[in-house]
């Protein structure tokens, strides 16, 4: 039996009266590129924060690489890499300084930290910007640096919250190939993004969360078949894109008709 890289049981997070994530039970197999989708405010970032130890669940439990993930599970934290929602960069450092800091915080020895810093900067095409402060980086450069910081310690499980937002096409292609390389070597990647084409191209499995509840979970083929079966005509299955699947599941019907919305707009 293959151990799940990420496993949650009844994961719930409440903020006062609001339940942001409710009873999410999820399993991500080792070596899977997993897409976690949902509309704005659905609970994606809250889920990632719980899965990475930044937020305490109100109920439920998490297992990472077969081990219970609780506060103080330091060895497990070392197996995890994260590009969090706000990137968590330190603006008044240069990129090499920041990467060295992160490497040391994960307990890498100095020589390895320095070597990997150089390799990552080279790979991310940030080597020429090594004197520049992070605060002066463009948004895309900051994303690349955040990704470099997330992988410097060689994590087995990588959590990426909107990693391609603001990244140009060339850099995005490069990052995708790097991530694919990690998958080929057995890492597990948990990705959230609103760009469904990227998920369709990279991910083998997808879960969709809406209003805090998991509403779909499976391989893209399984989801496609599931949605197609609810539509008239079996030929739909071949033509359904992930966007159509997503809209069908989270309720495209709630979108207003163009003529009904804000008619005073030019």
């Amino acid at each position, binding site marked *: 039996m293959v151990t799940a890289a990420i496993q949650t049981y009844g994961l719930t997070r409440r*903020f*006062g009266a609001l339940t*942001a994530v409710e009873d999410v039970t999820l399993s991500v197999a080792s070596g899977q590129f997993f897409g976690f989708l949902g509309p704005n*405010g659905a609970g994606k970032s*809250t889920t990632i*924060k719980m899965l*990475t*130890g*930044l*937020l*305490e669940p109100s109920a439920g439990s998490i297992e990472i690489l077969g081990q219970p993930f609780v*506060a*103080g599970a*330091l*060895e497990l*934290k*070392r197996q995890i890499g994260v590009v969090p929602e*706000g990137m*968590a960069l*330190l*603006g*008044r*450092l*240069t990129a090499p*300084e920041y990467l*060295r*800091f992160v490497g*040391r*915080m*994960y*307990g*890498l*020895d100095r*020589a*390895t930290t320095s070597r*990997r810093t150089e*390799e990552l900067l080279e*790979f991310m095409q940030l080597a020429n910007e090594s004197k520049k*402060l992070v*605060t002066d980086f463009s948004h895309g450069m900051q994303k690349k640096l955040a990704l470099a910081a997330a*992988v*410097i310690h*060689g*994590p*087995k499980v*990588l959590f990426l919250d909107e990693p391609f937002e603001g990244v140009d096409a060339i850099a995005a292609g490069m990052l995708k190939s*790097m991530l694919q*390389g*990690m998958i080929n*070597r*057995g*890492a597990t990647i948990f990705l959230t993004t609103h760009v469904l084409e990227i998920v369709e191209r990279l991910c083998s499995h997808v879960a969709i969360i809406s*209003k805090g509840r998991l509403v779909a979970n499976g391989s893209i083929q399984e989801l496609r078949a599931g949605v197609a079966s609810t539509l008239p005509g079996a030929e739909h299955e071949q033509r359904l894109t992930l966007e159509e699947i997503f809209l069908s599941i989270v309720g495209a*019907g*709630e*979108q*207003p*008709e163009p003529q*009904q*919305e804000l008619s005073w707009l030019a």
Partner: protein
Amino acid sequence: MAGVNGAGSGAGAASGEACLMPLGGGAFGPVARAQYGALAKLRWQMLSNGLRFRKGKLELGVRTLGFLIYGATGVALGGGLGFAAYLLAASHEMRFLPLVFWATFLLWQMIPIMMASFQEQFDLGSLLRFPVSFQSFFLLYAVFGLADISTILGGLCCVGIWVGLSVALPGLFLWTTLTVGLFALFNILLVRAIFAWIDRWLAQRKTREILGAVFMLLVLSAQLLNPALHHGFADFHQSNHKDAIRNTQHYRDMEARYEPWLKMADAVQQWLPPGLAAKGLQQAAGQVGGKTGGPTSGAAPGLGLIGLYALVAGGVLATRLKAEYRGESLGQAPKRTKAAPIRAKLAAGTSASTAAKVERASGWIPAWAGPVGAVMEKELRSLMRSVSQLYVLGAPLMMVFIFGSMFRSNVGTGHSFTLALPVCMAYSMLGFTQLFANNLGTEGAGIQLLFLSPTPFRTVLLAKNLFHAMLFGVDALIAGILVTLRLGTPDSAVLVGTIGWLLFALPANLAVGNVFSITMPFRVNPGRLTRQRGSQANALLSLLTQLAVMAVGATVFGLCWYLDRLWLAGPVFLVLAAGSVFGWLRVLRNAEGMANRRKDSLLLTLVKTE
């Protein structure tokens, strides 16, 4: 891809694990030590990188100056308290030693409250994504607190007491060291625990607003209680001139009335850390002096109890930090709209309740006020939701209330200090220092809107200045009423002079504040009393400006008093006021260009996070 083989599992991960240091060893294991080193280096790099900018150099200079000032203040306070401790011990008056420890305790715990907006602290929550153990997290939280102004001052006071007592009672060196050391540890842990919990309570907007309202009520209640509490004393002072014998009787009556309360307070304080520290040393000294065995039996129980208090304070702090360490969110999740379909909502048009809410939300300032009114309303709403700002505005009023009694000088003569009114006004203006000098700090990312909107920047600053002036007007009025109730109606010449000084001081502060707000702003988190990332340069320079404005006032008042022509102060201040109003208008006129020239730096500071 060859360059990033460390990422992932398999061969890459295996090589990665080989170069990872072993975890374990608690707060002093190899990884923990490497993390402390990385954090120290991080702080150093952030400081040295900051020197690339003129602002950074200024920051460093001011920070150094600040530490020198705080250090000198601490040495003076420590010297004073140490000398007092020495005198008490040398003259066998150890029964008064609790006063020295209580003074240190109050200083230690009160200063963070008074100086909350001037301090910069590091938010350790950002470390949670790394494999940092709880012991390290706790230790780092405590260690970062050592650079607090309160700890520097309190620590120096403790050193002063330790030196004073050790010189006076060399036989008690060990016990003095242990007692003062434990007392200092207790204070460090307590002050960190208090602020960790306050930050927790202020994290949610609703709690913040409730606390804000409670705080304002407390401030107002303090003002109302004041005259009532001192009614008895006022009678005493007024009659003192007339009949000394009756006064003595009155004093005896009062002593008899308050003696049980004082005795009870003394009995209680002996069981609290400052009292325990003093009592323990007092007993040890008595046993050493009386040669009834070693000091152990006298000091040890007290020492044990202080240790227990320190443990409790540490436990309270640990409880809070444990929750943060587990990933407790201090913020609030965004509200999700309930299930009603958008189509249905739009079909129904804007609902009556939404319309009412919009109407209610925009009804504070009349519509004709335009952008100025809009900015003022926004400022008022922001202020009402920021307990930390309400606090810094209210705190000086509380101090005016407390210091009021100091101006009832010459107890027994009934005379008050003539210039008490301007002194109290000047003090109440202190609370506005940060509001004047960092008036863009609460904008955050909203600063972009100020640049995007067609409203000129000078209009925005004008609105903020008018709002702050009105706010200060209310504060000054309360302070004025308070002083009048405490000390009687002020002399008309003093009243005119004070109004003249305010007319000079307010525009001067607003003008300089506008310049500081544009040139050295810092982002203010309205929900936090501590862990703010401040600008030391802004804080200290604005404080120096306040002091300069006060010095001008003091010079004019002093000279006029010396020449016995107090009436002259009013006209002199009016001339100065004309100058400061002119300066303020000039700054406003140039604000547009100044803000546009520094647009990048303003956006960088207020929008981007550290």
